């Protein structure tokens, strides 16, 4: 069902809140992978608030939908999301990156409630997500597994092993989403290691490709609607995004892949977050 106006308004508010949380955690932590966390805000917001069946009271619920953040460095974006949907109190994120905290930059599934997989070494998430999707088939369960990948991350060969296997096994219950923000650490994706034509590559590996504006909830919603009802072959959503989205001085800047902010930048960053992008 298409998003109603009030649902859309609610999602936009949740996204703006998440952006502010990401800025806060980055400030508290003394630095974080903020650029790639900001680019995925709408994607994880619509997943956690509209699509995913989860139960924060029962994080290990067998039939829950799964989410694997393959671009694990963006943990600073996922951690406040898990707090916002009720897995733990947001206050604890003041310890993010700190000695003895359960929260490192890359989140650990043995320590973080509601986290479906530890990630951080790029190129591992899609395989694990595929394993979860195949497990659903073996166990006759209906859950979906979503997997968010970075564009730079797609340089890793293991992703392509997993794609080949996903289309071989026709795991339509696995939904990969690419956060196509066009930057990696050392520069723009097309300069460091070109990916284009990215859609043709996924197609050649057996996927139906849906390309959307990854900051537009209506487009994301339509694509997800289609992806969750796929039967023939798995669907990948290539979400065109902007690295650093929502914080004016961070947008489309490679250098904000990882960064720290002082109290002045913290105020400025938060002030620039808008509900309507």
């Amino acid at each position: 069902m298409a998003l109603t106006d009030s649902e859309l308004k609610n999602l936009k508010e949740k996204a703006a809140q998440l952006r502010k949380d990401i800025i806060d955690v980055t400030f508290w932590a003394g630095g974080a992978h903020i650029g790639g966390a900001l680019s995925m805000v709408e994607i994880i917001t619509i997943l956690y608030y509209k699509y995913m069946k989860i139960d924060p009271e029962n994080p290990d619920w067998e039939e829950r939908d799964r989410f694997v953040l393959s671009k694990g460095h963006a943990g600073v974006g996922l951690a406040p999301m898990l707090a916002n949907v009720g897995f733990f109190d947001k206050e604890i994120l003041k310890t993010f990156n700190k000695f003895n905290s359960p929260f490192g930059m890359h989140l650990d599934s043995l320590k973080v409630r509601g986290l479906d997989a530890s990630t951080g070494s790029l190129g591992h998430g899609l395989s694990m997500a595929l394993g979860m999707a195949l497990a659903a088939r073996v166990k006759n369960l209906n859950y979906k597994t979503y997997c968010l990948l970075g564009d730079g991350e797609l340089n890793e060969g293991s992703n392509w092993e997993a794609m080949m296997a996903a289309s071989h096994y026709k795991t339509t219950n696995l939904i990969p989403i690419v956060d196509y923000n066009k930057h990696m650490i050392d520069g723009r994706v097309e300069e460091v290691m070109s990916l284009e034509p990215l859609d043709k590559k996924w197609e050649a590996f057996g996927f139906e490709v849906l390309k959307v504006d990854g900051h537009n909830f209506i487009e994301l919603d339509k694509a997800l609607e289609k992806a969750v009802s796929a039967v023939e072959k798995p669907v990948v959503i290539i979400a065109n995004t902007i690295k650093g989205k929502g914080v004016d001085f961070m947008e489309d800047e490679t250098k904000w892949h990882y960064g720290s902010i002082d109290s002045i930048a913290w105020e400025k960053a938060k002030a620039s977050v808008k509900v309507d992008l």
Partner: protein
Amino acid sequence: MAKEILGTTWTVYDADTLTQAEIYGKVLTELGEKHKDIVALTADLAKSTKIGKFNEVFPERFFNVGIAEQNLFGVAAGMAKAGLLPVVSTMATFASMRAAEQVRTDICYQNLNVKIIATHAGVSFGAAGSTHHCLEDLSIMRAFPNMTVIVPADGIETANAVKAAIEEHKGPVYIRIGRGFEPPYYKNDDYGFEIGKAVKLREGTDITIIATGVTVLQAVEAADFLKENDGISVEVINMHTIKPIDRQAVLDAVNNSRRILTVEEHNIM
């Protein structure tokens, strides 16, 4: 007459005291039948590792991911995370090196219940050349947190190890075996196999040989030879579990003979 006995991931060519049905039935069908959560995975080595036998009985729980070991172990991790019990087989060299990071990060660091049965270890596939030898896997695997490392002496001990790994131990296990052509030491499986507990095979007071894997039989033969020909009293210990090592067994040996010789089919440097 030597009979060929096929297990999940090994072949025993001479075990007159155990019928094919006994090993096969016991370890594979019994475990697969009894534990519906067992899934078997391989990377185009279903035939060579014998894990393909599982496919004949439980095709819906068998996954051949093609020649893609990184994906193989990542998928196994995901399945275990979702509550299944994956048994993964490929050659030791590929399990321990090509996919080392997936085994370490996805499986061991998340302490997942994945059983790796790695075949063709050591120089058991000597004729294949150095790309297929594997004299590094034990050092690599034992360094991974939560990993249990078992090196069975023969087919019968492999059966025991697989069973114990699946039924008595939760968490990652690496079972390292050869090609299946190794002559067996054990005649039957009821000698009290327990993960982490060494087995004394010969009493002796002059020296202790601590052996693991295929070298166990050779150690016993050496002990018998020395006793007969030179009157040397050799204690022999089968250290089938490399991690966690049976410290007490080592300390007792030090106490007993004060001389220890270790024998393994692996690099020590």
